């Protein structure tokens, strides 16, 4: 255990408080928005209720209780997995989100792994060739890709690889063909994911590339690498065996943090490619003013962002012992 129990407890408490604040804001959204809170819970028909029906509906959703009681009820229900019912789908919000989450994790996970691997390798190559044509060419291309809006990149991919060349499907996550199962079904999903994963990876690649390039550059200036050269090690071995592994810590942190943010950041790619993930749910819920679903989706985002930060915080000392409790206590 690299963290002392006290440090660990302190971290968890900090994140717990952050989570509580985020959940509080999430809870308050329908109350802070202008107009009738019932409008946000049951939809436009709230405007057609008579006084008795209105009182009944307010009581049904606990909206006649004082705000602090409503908040406690909300927390208790949320802990039990009850996030209300989606106005659009008529299903429990938890069920809708659990149906959609795997697709987002598959899309975002694949894209981030691809972005991390490619970004690190290209960053290392760029650093090794600092200032020459390879470095400038890579830097220009990747900065251009990271600056391109996700929707534009997605539509460009669809126009070229789906419409023009016909290599990949333009959208969706799997074919309508019901005969597919087993490996056929897996390959079908992979085929559908090529364009959206590549587009999302390109959008996310830039920051990892820049971090990798900078840290490899710093590492290359270290004495131990000078010694490696003096020993006569090959360039490839110096770069991939010594420089890159010693530069991975910031890349790892960036990767974990992006994992949290990218769950919500896939809204555009999921919409352009009609992938039924959490991003699409947010898009659809916003269009339909499905507040229970929006609140639920935001809660998932909150949990993933805070969770990713917590994972990064707690695991960092394993990869960099200098930041662990043992070292800090040793310094005292």
């Amino acid at each position, binding site marked *: 255990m690299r963290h002392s129990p006290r440090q660990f407890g302190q971290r968890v408490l900090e994140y717990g408080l952050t989570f509580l604040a985020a959940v509080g804001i999430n809870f308050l959204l329908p109350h802070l928005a*202008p*107009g*009738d809170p019932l*409008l946000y819970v*049951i*939809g*436009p*028909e*709230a*405007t*057609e*209720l*008579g*006084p008795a029906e209105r009182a009944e509906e307010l009581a049904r959703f606990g909206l006649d209780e004082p705000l602090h009681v409503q908040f406690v009820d909300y927390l208790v229900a949320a802990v039990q997995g009850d996030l209300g*019912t989606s*106005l*659009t*789908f*008529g*299903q429990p919000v938890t069920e*809708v989100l659990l*149906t*959609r989450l795997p697709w987002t994790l598959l899309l975002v996970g694949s894209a981030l792994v691809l972005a991390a691997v490619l970004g690190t390798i290209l960053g290392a190559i760029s650093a090794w060739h600092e200032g020459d044509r390879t470095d400038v060419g890579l830097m220009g291309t990747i900065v251009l890709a990271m600056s391109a809006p996700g929707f534009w990149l997605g*539509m460009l991919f*669809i*126009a070229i690889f*789906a*419409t023009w060349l*016909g290599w990949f*499907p*333009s*959208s*969706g*996550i*799997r074919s*309508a063909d*019901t005969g597919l199962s087993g490996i056929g079904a897996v390959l079908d999903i992979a085929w559908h994911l090529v364009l959206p994963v590549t587009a999302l990876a390109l959008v996310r690649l830039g920051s990892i590339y820049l971090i990798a390039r900078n840290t490899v550059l710093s590492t290359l200036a270290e004495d131990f690498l000078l010694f490696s050269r003096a020993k006569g090690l090959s360039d490839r071995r110096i770069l991939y065996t010594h420089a890159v592994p010693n530069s991975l810590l910031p890349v790892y942190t960036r990767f974990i943090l992006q994992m949290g943010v990218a769950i919500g950041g896939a809204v555009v790619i999921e*919409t*352009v*490619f*009609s992938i*039924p993930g959490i991003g*699409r*749910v947010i*898009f*659809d819920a*916003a*269009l*339909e*003013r499905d507040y229970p679903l929006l609140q639920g989706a935001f809660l998932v985002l909150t949990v993933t962002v805070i969770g990713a930060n917590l994972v990064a915080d707690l695991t960092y000392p394993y990869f960099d012992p200098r930041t662990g409790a043992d070292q800090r206590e040793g310094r005292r």
Partner: protein
Amino acid sequence: MNPYITNNARWDWLIELVHDKLLFPMPFTGPVSGLATDVTQVDDLTWTATIRDGVEWHDGEPFTPEDVAFSVGYYRDGPHSRNAHHVSQVPHIVEAEVLDDETVEFTTEYPTPTLADITFADLPILPKHVWSEVDDPNEYTELAVGTGPYEIVEYQQGERLRFEATGDWFYGDTIVDELVVEIIPDPSVTFTQLKTGEIDSTVRPIPPETLADFESDDAVDVVEATQLQGVELRLNFSRLPFRDHEFRRALSRAIDLDAVVDIVMLGEAISGSEGFPHPRSPWTADDIEIPYRPDFARQRLDELGYTDADGDGVRESPEGEPLEFQLDIASNEPQHIRAGEIVADQLSNFGIDVTVQTTDFGTIRSYYGRLDAYDMYISTSNFHLAADPDQFVMNHRGGPNLLWNVSPGQGLLGDHDADPEDLAYPEYERLQQDYFEATSTEQMLEVYHEMNRLHNRQPVAIPLWYPKDLLGYRPDAHDLWAETPGQGIAHKYSFIEPADRRDAITREFY
């Protein structure tokens, strides 16, 4: 596929693949026998329907008159839905009683000569043995059970619906065994998929700017088949000056609606100058219009006291308030934004200052229930709003809780901050009373057409255009499409033997 959840008439064609109605096909053509073989008006307030024998629900249970009586009561007394007003308000069916094993009797609160033509042709019938067990219809998510030609066999949330032909529909033999409906949120992706052949047809009309591309594509056919939709500029009639009926008249005559269509829709739409409701609805008066009359508009504004007293180029109301308004438009509707900019530019020539403000689609939709939230906004109406006379009366209905004389916090159109006394519109309320007292279709139409004329004289919603609904399909997959007004070419009658379609279609494309 749940008539309660699917609270939008856009998806009626999907509901109707599975569910049938007493009469076919829509309230915009002469209805033919559906689940009822015969419908009779007994007196002003009483109707009977003879129920078709030998029909089964998709789960094998027999269809009975009990299902019809149950459906009426369920829509009427249950939570609000797209179908509720057809039995609870306009019109109001007080009772649906099963007389024997083939007859249902309907009693209405006031004479309803169009009960068969409109209500019976618009109300999907539900299976009592399923829905009577459902406590909250808004939370019912099982696959629908109907009597229609298709059974829903799969629903992948956010992905697709799959329907299979049952093979024993009483009205006709299906010629398409399986229908897969892909859910595609982005319109541009829909048209890409139509181009690449990933889908065979789309219910989204082809935008005018891409029409030439599809017309030159040998693999895609394009036909014009109306879905009776319209794009409207809605005015907040609860606020001054829009609640001044004659101000609305002057304002509507200051907008060159033909120019809006020429510029925004490249001429590929019916101009809003042909008036509201939809000019192609068989129910609409044929002598309505909203003409461009700039001289009249200026003169009328002057007469009403809306003059530019301080010389800043913007008129002021008689109360001294400058005529400055915000026009809200959904940011995902580029054609609406362009139209809004043109309208704002045109009105500036009349001393009316309009600021175009884009916002999210959800906000625009919420305005339907919030008269306290906007000055003007642009939105799309489907056939239920743009062409159905009962819905027209429902939306413009007077009375203590509805459009005119509404009480704050109540009524169809929700919150507003006006004194109910100020919203009086006696001319309309008299017509509404006549509508509810009409005992024949001819009388009802006479009153309704008068309502149309009044509305177009002093519109609370100015129609900008009615899309021509250019619909594309790939003939190599299916080329026996036909039109039913209100649903274009995507409806169950396009998927049955042409010889069986009979009067359920108005035009065929083969």
